Structures are given as C-alpha cells and as structure tokens.
C-alpha cells in the first residue's frame, strides 16, 4: 500500500470546549476540571443514521492528527495515515473516523501547560491527576457533542488500547466493536519501573523547578532522557540488531571517548532531541502516571469482574516481540472476555519491531481489521 494512495488529503484540527464551571468534569481523583478543550480531527462523513463513526485513540505521546496533512507542504502525514483513508483499513469512504488528543496532553487538549482560569497562569502541578477513565469520559463528551449515539468501533494501541478497554467497560452499549492493540488491562511492574525512570529524569532536571518552568527554560534534558528510555522499551532486541547493530556512527574505529559513538546512541539522542520540541515535560509526567494507575482488575482484583460490563465484540491484537505490552497481557484480556461469554478474536502478529509494531505492521493489521469491521458483529442476533 503506497503512502499517498488513498490519503484523506488536507485536514484541520478542530476544538471542542466543555465542562465550563460550574459544570466541571468530576475526576477519579475526586477533583474537578473545567473548562476542558479537546483537540480533534475527523475524516470521512458521518452518515444520516450516525452509525458509521469510529473512534481512534492515540498512544502516550500521540495527538489528534491521525491522518492526512495539515498543509500541502507538510513533511509527514498523521501518525496512522497508512490505516486511515479511502480504501484503507479504516475506510473513510465508509466510516467517519474521529481522533482526539487526550486530556492531560499538550497537543491542543487541556493539560498541565494550559492556562488555569483561576490563576491566569499555566497549571503546572496544580493540574489534577487525570486517569485513563477521565480521558475516556472527556472523549465521551466529544462523542455526545458530535451527536453519535453508538460508535461502530473504538480502536487504539498501547495507551490508546487502555482507553479502548476503558470505553468498553464504562460505556458498554456505546460501541458495537472494539480493538485494543498491543495493550493491557494493567501495566506490568517492569513497565511501571521504566515510566518511573522517565519521570525521575524529568524531575531531576534543575529546569523542571517543581513543574513551574513555563516562560523559562524547560527541562529538556530530563524529558529527552525520559524519551530515550521510552524508545528502548518500544524496540526489540532483534529490531535494534537489525537497525543499528554495533555500528559506530560515521567511523570505523572508536575514539575511546564519552561522545556519542554507537549508532544506537545517536538514534536515541536524535529521538530525545526531536521529542522535546513537541512535548511538554509535565504532560509526560501526568500521562505516564495515568498509565501506571490504570488497572481494570480493580477494585476486586479480578480482571474477569472488571470487564464484566463489556458487551461489544472484540478483536485483541498483540505482537510477538513486544516485551513492554507482552502477548500474555492481551491473552489475559481475551481470557477474561471469553469467560464472560463476550465474542472475541485474538491474533498475535509475528513481528520483530517490538511494541512499535502497532505503528509499523500495516499490512497484517489492515487485513485483520478490514475484515473484522466488515464481518464481525456481536452474535446477539442469534437466539442465544
């Protein structure tokens, strides 16, 4: 599938503001947040029955710009452009695709870098702790605003997949299908540990200044390290061998120095440097913490009970070399759903790309998803 074929073309980010005081959104932590703005994009047309809407949810540092380009000179299309467009898996000739930036983020939606209306200054750490559930409740307000009673499908990878599961649990009758990809109902302690290292790097940066760095130097070295750690967890041993090997950067013999010598080091530096240009350090703290807190097996400690409300049919997808969200986590979800008599398919895609595979294995993902959207439906049409 070539990248230009079937593009949604030039798109524009839109904004929806709600939860104006005194009707603020009540958060899981007990605090209230409002007004809330969500940045979102839509592709394709909502049909008359408003039954063809698909909600796509981005990962930790993703944004609302999932497909198309903002201007003809845009260097890169949206983050899931190969999946969304005319004739693609999320076929915009048939479906109305919505992607919104999560609350707590920094790419158009309300987050710690937004102005706190009470003080007139950026929230910083005054921003309340938001959870995956809060993000979903905010998205629900957007979906209501768009007049959609029931989504055809909710789909997302990684942190987006967590929100997909939360959607299916909190709003079980608001979707017909859901597709969590490379995701989990609860992070492993190993994944929480990596998140913690990232947060420590940010908070140890003197520029961080307890979150009050807006208008001054931002904690870019801390954020950059956090991103580097993150990137290690998104790749696999094999993909690092293939991509970098033990190659040195622009030389054959080492200089025996502490400069960047290996290709893999150079890659991480580049990823870190690029990331700080587009992401807010406080948002990274909040969003990674939201992932850590997420646990659908609570309060009873049993995933099957946590998922008991789910009604929609699911396609759960994992990737063989993903060690951050390993296949066993997806299987846990599938197992709980099956025990609850929910219709579910599970596919493990063989891939060397690690966790990143959900942004790379387009062919297999497209094949699975296209057919699932086309043919699957909850079997409640049967008499049983």
């Amino acid at each position: 599938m070539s990248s230009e074929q079937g593009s949604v073309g030039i798109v524009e980010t839109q904004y929806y503001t709600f939860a104006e005081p005194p009707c603020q959104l009540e958060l899981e932590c007990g605090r209230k947040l409002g007004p809330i703005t969500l940045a979102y994009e839509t592709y394709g047309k909502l049909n008359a029955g408003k039954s063809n809407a698909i909600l796509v949810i981005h990962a930790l540092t993703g944004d609302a710009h999932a497909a198309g380009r903002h201007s003809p000179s845009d260097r890169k299309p949206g983050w899931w452009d190969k999946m969304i467009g005319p004739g693609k898996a999320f076929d915009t000739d048939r479906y109305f695709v919505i992607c919104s930036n999560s609350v707590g983020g920094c790419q158009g939606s309300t987050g710690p870098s937004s102005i706190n209306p009470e003080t007139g200054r950026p929230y910083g750490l005054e921003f309340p702790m938001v959870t995956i559930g809060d993000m979903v409740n905010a998205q629900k307000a957007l979906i209501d605003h768009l007049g959609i009673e029931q989504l055809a499908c909710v789909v997302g990878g990684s942190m987006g997949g967590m929100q997909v599961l939360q959607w299916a649990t909190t709003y079980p009758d608001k979707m017909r299908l859901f597709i969590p990809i490379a995701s989990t109902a609860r992070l492993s302690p190993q994944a929480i540990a990596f998140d913690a290292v990232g947060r420590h790097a940010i908070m140890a940066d003197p520029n961080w200044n307890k979150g009050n760095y807006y208008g001054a130097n931002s904690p870019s070295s801390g954020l950059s390290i956090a991103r580097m750690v993150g990137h290690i967890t998104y790749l696999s041993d094999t993909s690092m061998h293939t991509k970098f090997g033990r190659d040195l950067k622009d030389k054959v013999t080492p200089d025996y120095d502490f400069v960047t010598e290996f290709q893999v080091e150079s890659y991480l530096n580049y990823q870190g440097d690029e990331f700080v240009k587009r992401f807010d350090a406080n948002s990274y703290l909040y969003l990674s913490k939201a992932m850590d807190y997420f646990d659908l097996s609570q309060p009873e400690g049993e995933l099957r009970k946590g998922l008991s409300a789910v009604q929609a049919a699911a396609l759960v997808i994992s990737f063989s070399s993903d060690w951050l969200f390993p296949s066993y986590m997806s299987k846990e979800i599938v197992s709980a759903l099956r025990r609850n008599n929910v219709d579910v398919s599970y596919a493990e895609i063989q891939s060397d790309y690690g966790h990143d595979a959900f942004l790379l294995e387009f062919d297999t993902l497209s094949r699975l998803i296209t057919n699932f959207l086309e043919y699957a439906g909850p079997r409640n049409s049967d008499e049983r």
Partner: protein
Amino acid sequence: MSGEIRTVLRSNGDLRHEFQYIVNTVKPGSTVLDLGCGSGELMKALQKQKRARVQGIELSDTAVQSCVEKGLFVYHGDLNEGLADFNDNSVDYVILTSTLQVLERPDLLILEAARVGRQCVVSVPNFGYWRVRFQLMFQGVMPKTEHLPYEWYDTPNIHLTTLTDFRRFCKKYGLHIEQEIDLVIGEQSCKRIWLLPNFFADYGIFVLRRETPLTGSDKI
C-alpha cells in the same frame, strides 16, 4: 499447526466431504468450539447451515487471519492453553478434526474437550487402513497416504491411531461413542464404510459423550 495439516486434505472447492458429515451431527442453534479450526471452513458451515454459535482456536497465523476474514471468532494460540477459560459443560460441541495426531498429549486434550463440551466430535485418519498396512507389510516402508502425505522425517503426525485403538481409548476413559461415521475419502466423493471399517476406512468421525457426569460442578 493443524491449519497446515488440513491443507493437505483435499478440498472440492466448497466444503470438504467429510466436513458435511460433521456438520450433520450438530443440532441447530448449538454452541461449538472448534479446536485447531484451521481457516474456519467447518465453523463457517456450522454457522450457515446450523445457525451455530461458533468459536475456534488455531495456532497458525495465516489460518487465524482467514478466520477473521470469514467473520469468525478465533483465538490465536496453542490448543492446550485454550481450554482453561472454559467451564465444564459450557459448550454444546467441542470439535477436533484431524488435530489429535499432531498433539503431544492427545489424551489430555480429548479429556479436556469432554469436560468442556456436552458432546465431542473427534475425527482421525485411520492408521489401520488397508493401504497403510500394505505399504508397511509388502514394501517395508513408512506408509504415505492422502491423509498422511509426509516422510517419516518431517511428519507432524506423532500420535497416529487406528479406529480400533480410538474405540479402546474411549472405553477406557468412559467416553460413550454415540455415533461413529467411517469413511473413505476420494477425490470427488466420500463413501461411508460399513464393512470392517478399521481395514477399509481411511477416516473416522466419532461423536462422544461422557458416560458419567463430572463431579464438582465447576473446577475453574
């Protein structure tokens, strides 16, 4: 694994002949779990002809994709890990077609299938088939047939059985054979064998039911 095995069985374009016999054993509107469901042909036929509520378990990724393409619900995984999610008597039929011979412990899976399913439909290639016997007897070579096309060194079939062996197994483990359909499957057709099936049939379909109810209502 079983997906690959099945591709060596001929298909007449539509439904394989032996599958129609299996479909006929299933009551309309039943719930069915197909272990080693391959690309989902049988499940699709059960869904269409019997309005059955079907789901499968399959190890081969291409076969899993074919199932999803058919709109079927399938679990990508090893057969032995699959059944822990299912309560006793939780589905009407558990189906095992041409799957047993490739498993490490077919006995354990049959017993699990008999725990989960009210009935089990099990089909096996018959190693007592006369062509198999003759090859070993007169040529002195490891037998190769339509159902068993592999060389001795690359065969996935590690637990072959004859129809007689399988009946003995059922007896030993308290599985009542409600129905047995013995066939010889040709290119164009599939013939039922009534006379000396362990010699003249190359394929057997068994509908099984536990003779004694499970003790302890829910082991999960």
